[in-house]
């Protein structure tokens, strides 16, 4: 028999069935509840925005891999995850050029320029969001009122403010919260409030997040420490001066915190790999989010916090290396 037909490779000769593209697909699957809620709340606008980000992100990824003369690996689904998360981080109905700009920054500037999949120091979708927020603040904060599917298909949407934005401007103008009944906890939980396209519904994000933990795609440490830190710190502040901030439950449910904690902060590429490191990372994200929300100029702090902690990730990985088996401290 001809011997050269035998494949010679390093052990192990068997592998776990989970591959990178399946991991990414599971993340997409976990986002489905949030996507469905945004369809329900924003109707046609949501469909259009998701379609645009997916087309732009996948297209740009393929184009730049081609330009770099690399195999076009769009099928690893990582660009798809970025596309969906970017859409969720935009207002419900952004103009097409805003989506294109965001996709370009996310895929090309913050991912491909650094070497593509696995090489980017910052979460691409968040870099895209923050870039747009700084470059086009007006377009990025033109919210439309949350409504049901039926009215969402109409084109005379009413513009409005997000709960956190409303509170922030009230505190800036008059020093304390003026409006009452804002940010009803049930509305926040279900997602029937104005805000970014996705992630408004805490319950939908939670379902997806728990699914990922159950499937062992992510560990619970980052989301838990992140949310717990925000809850405890905002709770303390709220106990001291309740007229200056929302209560801690509202803080947990409002804005992009849930989406950030379960889907953005846990991004493999940009978060630490060890449990100890992840706990520190989650705490850092929580602390920064609270500082920005309570004392900063922006109503929301999730995107900035995670990006800042992304920058610290290599340090955490380096200095929080667990002891090797039987390691003798010299």
């Amino acid at each position, binding site marked *: *028999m001809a*011997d*050269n*037909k*035998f*494949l*010679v*490779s*390093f*052990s*192990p*000769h*068997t*592998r*776990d*069935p*989970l*591959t*990178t593209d*399946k*991991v990414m697909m599971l993340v997409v699957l976990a986002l489905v509840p949030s996507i469905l809620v945004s369809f329900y709340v924003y109707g046609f606008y949501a469909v259009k925005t998701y379609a645009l980000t997916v087309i732009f992100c996948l297209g740009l990824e393929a184009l730049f891999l081609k330009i770099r003369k690399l195999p076009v*690996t769009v099928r*690893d689904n*990582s660009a798809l995850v970025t596309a969906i998360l970017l859409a969720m981080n935009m207002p419900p109905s952004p103009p097409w050029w805003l989506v294109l700009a965001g996709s370009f920054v996310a895929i090309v500037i913050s991912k491909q320029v650094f*070497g*593509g*999949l*696995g*090489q980017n120091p910052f979460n691409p979708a968040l870099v895209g969001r923050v870039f747009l927020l700084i470059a086009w603040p007006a377009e990025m904060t033109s919210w439309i009122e949350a409504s049901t599917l039926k009215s969402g298909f109409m084109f005379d949407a009413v513009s409005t403010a997000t709960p956190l934005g409303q509170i922030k401007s009230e505190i800036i103008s008059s020093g304390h919260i003026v409006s009452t009944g804002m940010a009803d906890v049930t509305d926040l939980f279900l997602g029937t409030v104005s805000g970014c396209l996705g992630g408004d519904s805490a319950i939908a994000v939670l379902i997806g997040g728990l699914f990922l933990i159950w499937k062992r795609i992510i560990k619970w440490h980052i989301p838990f420490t992140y949310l717990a830190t925000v809850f405890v710190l905002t709770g303390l502040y709220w106990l001291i001066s309740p007229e200056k901030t929302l209560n801690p439950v509202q803080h947990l449910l409002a804005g992009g915190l849930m989406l950030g904690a379960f889907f953005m902060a846990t991004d*493999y*590429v*940009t*978060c630490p*790999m*060890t449990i100890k490191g992840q706990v520190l990372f989650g705490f850092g994200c929580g602390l920064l989010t609270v500082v920005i929300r309570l004392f900063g100029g922006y109503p929301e702090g999730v995107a900035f916090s995670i990006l800042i902690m992304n920058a610290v990730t290599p340090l955490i*990985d380096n200095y929080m*290396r*667990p*002891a*090797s*088996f*039987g*390691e*003798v401290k010299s």
Partner: protein
Amino acid sequence: MPFFGFRGGVHPDYNKGATSGKPIEVMPVKEGALYGVPLAQHIGAPAKALVAKNQEVKAGELIGQAAGFISANIHAPVSGKVVALQDLPHPVTGKTAGVIIEASGDQNEILPAEAAEKFQDAVLRAGIVGLGGATFPTNVKLSPPKKVDTLLLNGAECEPYLTCDHRLMLEKTEEIIKGADIIRKALNIENLIIGIEENKPDALAAFGKFVSAYKFELIPLEVKYPQGGEKQLIKACLNRTVPEGMLPLEVGVIVHNVGTCLAVFEAVANRKPLIERVVTVTGAVKEPKNLLVRIGTPVKDIIEYCGGFLGEPRKVVMGGPMMGFALSTLDVPMMKGTSGILVFRSEDLPDLRQCNCIRCGRCVDVCPMGLIPSVMDRFVIREMYESLADWHVMNCIECGCCSYDCPSRRNLAGGFKTSKREVMKVLKAREAQKNG
């Protein structure tokens, strides 16, 4: 019975069903067949050849003398004529010096090894090495320079597909215990522990019958790879941690594979040299078997004896799927450390297309040695051996858990394995600088 467990590890599909119920079958010696016996089937210096071309040898005759402290004797596996002294194919080094013997018709008699007073000498003369796959000369391990309080028998057999130890534990239960008893008495060791994975309840029951007669502790082990790793086993059974870079001896333990124990018993009680061993032949072969095979039998003949391939073979592995070696040729001979011969067709093999590391951290979670394989992989790619040394690559036991679990299909364990030689140079240079 305490069980402490160890951190990390993976749960690959065990695939032991094809052979676990099959009693050990003796593969007969075929007259005129060629047996290629490598002179190095162990860690350490190769044995020195004692025979010349055209010389008649008897099965069990010493044909290779252990050369140095860490070396092992080699015996003729069959009676016949030495037809050549030449290089043989080897799965790891490519080729190795060996003796080729043409079997004659008469195989009824096996020449006993030279008698010995000390049991260590009996083990040395029988050419016994660790049969779990590490092939460390057993007599060296049995001459501990310091006090040992526990002898730990390794019956985990955590590698998927392999069932040779399982069958030995069922069919040679008392002999294995007697082997352990010989070691225990000779070295004055208080505790004897036998650890067997819980997925072999019949083996646990078989040993259970002897617990009171021989006074040992039987520990059912969690079913997890690499449960049979020496340091993992000690941690799991005794909750002792072997310090990095040290041997189990450091914490007062010696670990022996159950097959090795049986060989020790046979060497001491019957003066039987190690010229055959049990191997599991499974995967895409017509009749999967547990076979008692003479050392030196070419893999080709073994597969033929099992009815040949089932379908189109794509990869043939010597050893288990987690740590075994892929063969480039079926002329490789059976060696003392060969526990399995596995045949895979294309459809049995995983897709090995690599992509970039996505830093998912799964390798970190499963590493039983507490290493960070994903970061170390970057050092391997950039040939940063200093950094590899600092990140404890020498502590890697090459179990392959990291590669197994990597969704990006990166060749993590393979990279560490190949880098270790360069890292050794770094460490030696550092040592020299410290002393100079």
